[in-house]
């Protein structure tokens, strides 16, 4: 399975830049996710790789072959790129049986009948759809159609697998099962895969690496842990999971730590920081589940432990969520155990804080 390299793609729709210098490399056998809100350019990127859209600049390489190169005026038509793609709507051809759907790409490749039968059988077994070979798509459930779409994309051994929001039409429970199933399959086949989604849970749970996109630009590329724990900027922090944003001015530097005068309150926050200077403004993000909530009479820890008033508390099944006010600063904290009282203490662990741009 080859590596995919995307170099400086630019695509404009009218005055709007849909892709603004997008570059990344997908390693051999990796599941690489493009994550972002709708309109961020993730689907445009995927469709450019598949050959259904033409960027104005840049290069797309699959292995050592350029399927698109604006400078050299190379643009292979979609049918010659040998990529497997699963669409959001599955796009299982409604007038063909499951067998015929899978046979189509093989017939186009002029395979022998026996070989076609063999390949279809093998692939259907892989997606556990053997008993449904003779069925028409309208006789299948959404989840089964999705498996057929995946099988059709795999049956001709494409060099790369592209997944365009494949789970968004499934209901919540099925979606979670389908996720781990697809991830497992991808891993076992060692397929280089690009996956597009707007769902951060999908992105975090399935990907080897994630590229977070916004407004046609890549904001951060990293492992799921990277983008969640060490977001490169405020957009990534806020898009991937929920986050508390705390802004302040550096009062002094204490070893590898910066001590901030937090805006909107008289509290101070100590965060790990390399290279921050006194009087510099910093934005710090911290996840709600990293904070701890303590009873108001708990005085154990001094640093980063503030008094706060409880604005609202909600029980969410596996945890409790508190909306807190510390001065005029609003914070969200999640905790496994409830804490009583209208006033409490909240602790923000310094190493859970990330300084972002």
């Amino acid at each position, binding site marked *: 399975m080859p590596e995919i390299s995307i170099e400086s793609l630019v695509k404009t729709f009218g005055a709007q830049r849909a892709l603004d210098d997008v570059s990344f490399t997908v390693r051999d056998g990796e599941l690489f996710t493009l994550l972002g809100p709708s309109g961020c350019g993730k689907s445009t990127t995927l469709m450019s790789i598949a050959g259904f859209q033409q960027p104005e600049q840049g290069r797309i390489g699959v292995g050592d072959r350029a399927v698109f190169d604006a400078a050299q005026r190379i643009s292979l038509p979609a049918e010659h790129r040998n990529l497997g793609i699963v669409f959001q709507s599955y796009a299982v051809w409604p007038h063909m049986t499951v067998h015929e759907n899978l046979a189509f790409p093989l017939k186009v*490749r002029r395979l022998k009948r026996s070989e076609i039968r063999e390949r279809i059988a093998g692939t259907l077994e892989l997606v556990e759809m053997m008993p449904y070979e003779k069925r028409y798509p309208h006789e299948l459930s959404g989840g089964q159609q999705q498996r057929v779409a995946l099988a059709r994309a795999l049956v001709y051994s494409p060099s790369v697998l592209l997944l365009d929001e494949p789970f968004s039409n499934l209901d919540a429970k099925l979606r979670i099962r389908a996720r781990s199933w697809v991830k497992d399959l991808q891993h076992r086949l060692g397929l280089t895969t690009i996956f597009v989604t707007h769902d951060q849970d999908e992105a975090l749970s399935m990907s080897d690496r994630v590229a977070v996109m916004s407004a046609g630009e890549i904001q951060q590329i990293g492992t799921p842990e990277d983008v969640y724990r060490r977001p490169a900027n405020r957009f990534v922090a806020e898009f991937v999971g929920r986050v508390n944003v705390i802004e302040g001015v550096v009062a002094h530097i204490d070893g590898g730590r910066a001590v901030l005068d937090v805006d909107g309150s008289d509290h101070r926050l100590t965060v790990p920081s390399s290279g921050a200077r006194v009087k510099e403004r910093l934005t710090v993000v911290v996840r709600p589940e990293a904070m701890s909530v303590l009873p108001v009479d708990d005085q154990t820890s001094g640093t980063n432990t503030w008094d706060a008033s409880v604005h609202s508390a909600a029980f969410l099944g596996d945890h409790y969520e508190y909306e807190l006010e510390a001065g005029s600063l609003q914070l969200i904290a999640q905790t496994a155990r409830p804490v009583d009282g209208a006033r409490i203490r909240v602790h923000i662990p310094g190493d859970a804080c990330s300084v972002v741009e």
Partner: protein
Amino acid sequence: MATTSYPAGTLPRPRRSIVPAGVLQWLTWALVVTLVLGPFLPLLYASVRDRPLYEVGGRFTVEPYRELFGQRAFWHAWWNTLQFAALTTTLAVTLGAAVAILCTRTDLAGRRAFSRLVLLPLLLPSLGMVLGWTAVWGDGGYITSFFHQRLHIGTPSINTIPGMSLVEATRLMPIAFLTCQAALVRADSSLEDAARSAGASPLRVLRSITIPMLRPALLNAATLIFTLSIAVLGIPLLLGVPNNIQFVSSYLYTLWTNASSPDPGSVSAGAMLLLSVATFLLLVRNKLIGAEARFVSVGGKATRVAFLRLGRWRWMLAGAIGFYLLFTTLLPILGLALMSFVVFLTPLIPPWELLTWSHWQMLNDGVFRNSIQNSLIIAVVGAVLATAFVTLATLVAHRSPFRLRRSLPFVMLYPRAIPGIIIGIGFFWAFLLTGAIGDWLRNSIWGIMLAFCIRNLPLAYIVMYPTLARIGDELDRAGRAAGAGWWTTSRRIVLPLLRPAMFAAFILLFVELLNDYDPAVFLVRPGTEVMGATMLSEFIQGAVGPVAALAMVQVAVTVVVLLVGSKVFNIETTGGRDA
């Protein structure tokens, strides 16, 4: 589970199409543009020459225009035409909208049946229907005489401009009905529910929400009906001319047939003028359709349609629509049938004393037999060819990367705005100028078939496009990704899904090609007669009985084909294989 059976390894490259997709797309585009726009160039040319194009020599002149514009009768014909078109449009749109609202938004008795039945006048042969009207509502017609002699009440004459408008409005009303019905079905009925909840009475909802929502559809239908009615030829020839009322179309027709020197340039000049007006109206309509998007309510699934309860009006209004259909459709057909079976049509002698088979027997030979044969051949062959051609062109227009594809929908819809007689004159000149091919087309029925097909292209496109638009383009993208080229993807994936629409287009084209006549009146020659043109010329010569019999043949074939077509079509669409 076994993972070893997944076959790995690279496969051979996908096979390339024999015909490169680009070439095919270019050819399709060029053919559409040539066939639709081609005939107008010779027309324009003929209108600025001082002698017919087939004569040697000739030079540029504006004399045909000067001659035509100098005739008071021409301007008078325009004035008549405009009055007629305005009145027809008003009547047809008002009626069509009212029936559409009744059928989609109220509990009118029999609304499902009515929403099918009211379409009939548009599909029935228009020339035959006009004859039927004269049989029952004409000056000596059955019902007219009945009112006059038994009840001593005069009925309005259909040989006047308002009378002709009524006849034409009943034919074109279905267009307004269809447009409004589509808009009403598409519109989210929760908009109306919201007004009801806000305290508005049903009638208030109708006035303040439903009708304003229909405004774009009304404008759209009105422009189309106006355009169609300024071009109509059968009505002025059959009803107006006997009463000395000329329309532009009949004026040009008379000028052409009675000219002292053959094929006068002033007819081409008049045709150019008519073409400009029609084109202008089409452009206006395109603007209106663009504006329509603003009124399309987004969202809202196919919700339950809120019915306005009519109470006892439920049956009274149903009765009114029933009477309307009886008087405007059923009685004219019965009159037509009667006309074909009696020696001459008179309410004074009981018809059974005048019974005769002779009109029907006449259909067996000569020009009548020829016409029936030719029309059937044209309808079958033309409908097959035009369906295939429009399918290909629609695919190029909406499912290909072809650069000029966006121009195709406009070009394909253009003939809808062009008066039939202009298509006739245009092809007449085009055949004269294109050497051997033109001669062959001119001397065979294929020339007439071509003109008829071009005229009815828009119909096929209008039927085809909505179905194509519903077939998600991810389906063809999946085909491309799987390794198939444009043509293979179109043929194996899109075309099978388009089949119901292709079938519907074929049925409608068959009916239209069978009954079309006005382009043919400039193209027929001995041996290439078609039913409509024969009816027109024989009627003018006074052979009413056989013409009625011929019209009955048209009506019968049309009704049978539509019935069979809608049966098969229903099975196709409910086959459950929809995307």
